[in-house]
């Protein structure tokens, strides 16, 4: 079995993200089994998955760090022309850091740093949808101090306060009636706040239940930089470099999970998440200064709430190795009439494999492998009269390390 390890580690990843622009890769162990972990404890990453579980750690200190390499490819077949185009996305690298400290039998403290939202899509400067988007990079880093409290042997709660650093960069061509194509580059960052709270309950020795809610976070970009390039000199006064503000809502997510310890070695779990994407109704840009050509813009997104279903299993092979596998179905929040190539997410099916190795008492490493099938859909962004068929594939390799003492 050891031989399998090499190819997994050898993979140079390729890509991607979940519904909308959520990135669900917060723990390599959990990712290996369908990215579920709300109802059972797998180490310091509980600070993200369910803060209530931090007190379940046997160690005084527990640390986890890791990251993923995301390789993705999105293909588009223009509904009018039949011509196919595809993205040239760079490899994405979401990461996480978790640390928990058991203050006493009741109380634990933790710190979580993670990137639950992000998206990098590069269609190129001269593709047929260039007036909608050429490339976009979104990212949000959450820093979350967390506390948990064991109410009884069976019931525990926890909550964290998240400081969110969000960043957006959007490049698109301007559809001017005259002259060469000019381009707009919008770049901004903002700090926002949210929380992550959870309850965990052991029904009996075999079954446990977890419920979490991660709050909505409005990333309000103020004083973003709007820069215009290649504008005809005669039109330059219509497109003065300036500032913009915009609000990007990161939706709240409520997750309910159940874990069942089939035997000492085998654990299975199912989870359902409800993601409040309906908060993302519109992406509005307020430009400063405005000119007759440069008006504030409102761009309908009209996302709908979406569900994610996950199922996964972990098998503890021996003292050295654990194996994991999982599956999830991540529903697209985007309606067929408002499917914009800036965040082109269809219903995703995720297939995962994972493995952990324990080296001695304190040290361990984890690897995960995730293949995401973005199912084909035929959709358009009606406000721009642009659409066709979209499909995507992603290969995500995750690697994590943990140290406990």
């Amino acid at each position, binding site marked *: 079995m050891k031989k399998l390890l090499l190819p997994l580690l*050898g993979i140079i990843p390729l890509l991607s993200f979940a519904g909308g622009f959520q990135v669900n890769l917060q723990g390599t162990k959990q990712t290996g089994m369908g990215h579920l972990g709300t109802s059972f404890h797998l180490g310091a990453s509980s600070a993200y998955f369910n803060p209530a579980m931090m007190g379940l750690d046997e160690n005084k200190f527990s640390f986890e760090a890791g990251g993923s390499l995301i390789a993705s490819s999105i*293909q588009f077949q223009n509904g009018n022309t039949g011509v196919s185009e595809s993205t040239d996305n760079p490899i994405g690298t979401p990461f996480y850091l978790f640390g928990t400290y058991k203050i006493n039998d009741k109380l634990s403290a933790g710190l979580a740093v993670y990137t639950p939202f992000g998206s990098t899509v590069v269609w190129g400067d001269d593709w047929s949808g260039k007036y909608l988007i050429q490339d976009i990079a979104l990212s949000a880093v959450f820093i979350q101090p967390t506390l948990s409290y064991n109410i009884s042997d069976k019931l525990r709660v926890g909550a964290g306060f998240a400081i969110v650093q969000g960043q957006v960069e959007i490049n698109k061509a301007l559809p001017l009636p005259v002259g060469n194509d000019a381009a707009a580059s919008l770049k901004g960052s903002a700090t926002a706040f949210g929380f992550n709270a959870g309850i965990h309950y052991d029904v009996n020795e075999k079954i446990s239940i977890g419920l979490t809610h991660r709050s909505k976070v409005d990333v309000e970009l103020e004083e973003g930089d709007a820069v215009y390039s290649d504008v005809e000199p005669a039109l330059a006064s219509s497109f003065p470099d300036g500032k913009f503000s915009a609000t990007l809502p990161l939706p709240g997510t409520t997750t309910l999970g159940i874990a069942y310890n089939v035997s000492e070695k085998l654990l299975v779990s199912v989870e359902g998440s409800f993601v409040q994407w309906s908060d993302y109704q519109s992406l509005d840009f307020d430009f400063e200064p405005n000119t007759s050509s440069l008006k504030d813009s409102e761009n309908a997104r009209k996302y709908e709430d979406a569900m994610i279903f996950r199922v996964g299993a972990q098998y503890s092979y021996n003292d050295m190795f654990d194996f994991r596998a999982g599956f999830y179905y991540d529903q697209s929040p985007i309606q067929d009439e408002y499917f914009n190539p800036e965040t082109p997410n269809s219903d995703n099916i995720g297939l995962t494999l994972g493995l952990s190795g324990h080296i001695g008492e304190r040290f361990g490493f984890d690897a995960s492998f995730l*293949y995401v099938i973005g199912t084909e859909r035929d959709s358009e962004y009606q406000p721009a009269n642009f659409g066709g068929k979209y499909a995507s594939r992603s290969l995500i390799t995750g690697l994590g390390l943990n140290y406990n003492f």
Partner: protein
Amino acid sequence: MKKYKLLYLLPAALLFGCEPDIEDVSTNGGSADFSVYVAVGNSLTSGIQGESLTLEGQEYCYPNIIATQLEPLGGGEFKQPLLTGEPATEGVFTTFYPDPRSNLVLPSIVLKATPTGLAPVFPDPLMDWYSAPAFFENISAEGPYNNVGASGARVGSLNDPAFSSSNNWFKRFSSPGETVLEAAMKNNPTFFSLWIGANDVLGYSTSGGDESGRLITSISEFEADISEALDTLTRTGAKGVIANIPSVTGIAYFNTVPLGTILDAASANALTQGYADYNDALENPLLGIPAAEAAKRKITFTAGQFNFFIVTDTTLQSDRRLAGVPSIRQITSNEHLILQTPQDSLLSGWGTAKPIPGNYHINTDELKKINDATAEYNRIIKREADVRGLAHYDAYAAFNVISSTGIIEDGISLNGDYISGGMFSLDGVHPSTRGHAVAANGFIDAINAKYGSNIQSVSVSNYPSVEVTP
């Protein structure tokens, strides 16, 4: 070790399989044969933009776009009578000489930076080039040409042997005495497009209506000529598409020059004074002008408000009692001034201190004649298409939507506004490059609907906007 190496290949293989695969669109021609396509028409078909022809205009004309999309369905070479050589300097006709072949590009309206911003610069004088002396070398021997669009062609020109000598554009690529239809049929076409008829009303309209001396083709003549053209084009069994005529009064050419202006108190008072004698005469009981006539002619200027310009209107009731009273009145809101109404003259008192000459003005009467003729022509075109089982592109409806509400293609807003609308070239009559792409898609949709083919459309975003000349 060997085992390890094989395992190492696995991830590479997995990555290779990572590309999503959307099934290619399979093309089929339906019940039509697109192997030899000819385009018959006027300046819209030949690719005129900005009142002139350029190599770029020819490349981006709708027939060439259609022909490119026909290629995957077995469409053969689409030969156009392309211009050669470098563009002539705007407004300088002498650059056509001494070698007409090397400078065979006509001066066009260009968009340039001016102190007040981007503005169209008209060649001076704007050349009515197709009636200018011949200066083209004949290239008919290199034909036959698939695009036989000839700028200036009316429906009656298509079967007129004299057209090859009277029309300099057609003369360039036809043999003496050859008709446009004969030139088209030399290709043995299996498929044709016909977009004709705009000049049958446009010549009258663009020159100001009744004052132009150019007539609207009579309905019976139009009917006979279009029928004859279609008889010829379908004689060998070719299928085809025929487009109707957009509302000429909906184009930017007729809807750009404002119909009036806002006046300050001093100007309004001065003008009211200036026209006092005229207004008095209208109401002079000695002249006995009917009240309705007087009301139509009465001129009023109000300070701080929008005041319609004054025009000369020779269609005003002629009556010996009106002898000596100028035939002038204020424009009404549903009338039009043409794009070539001199802007500098408007600034120096045309329309206020002096009437705008009638040849820049389309009045309600003329408007009715234009619209009635267009409606009749389009009725005939639709009937002929139906009777003969041809595809029909309703350009009239499509361009009305563009002019009224505008359209969006690939994120580009297009409407009928002059320059800023993006749909028309700088002459305000002929479509821009993007306008041609929109029209080509309209033709393609009509063909597909009729013949069950699936010719693919083009992305309007792949076509450039109106060029700015440095």
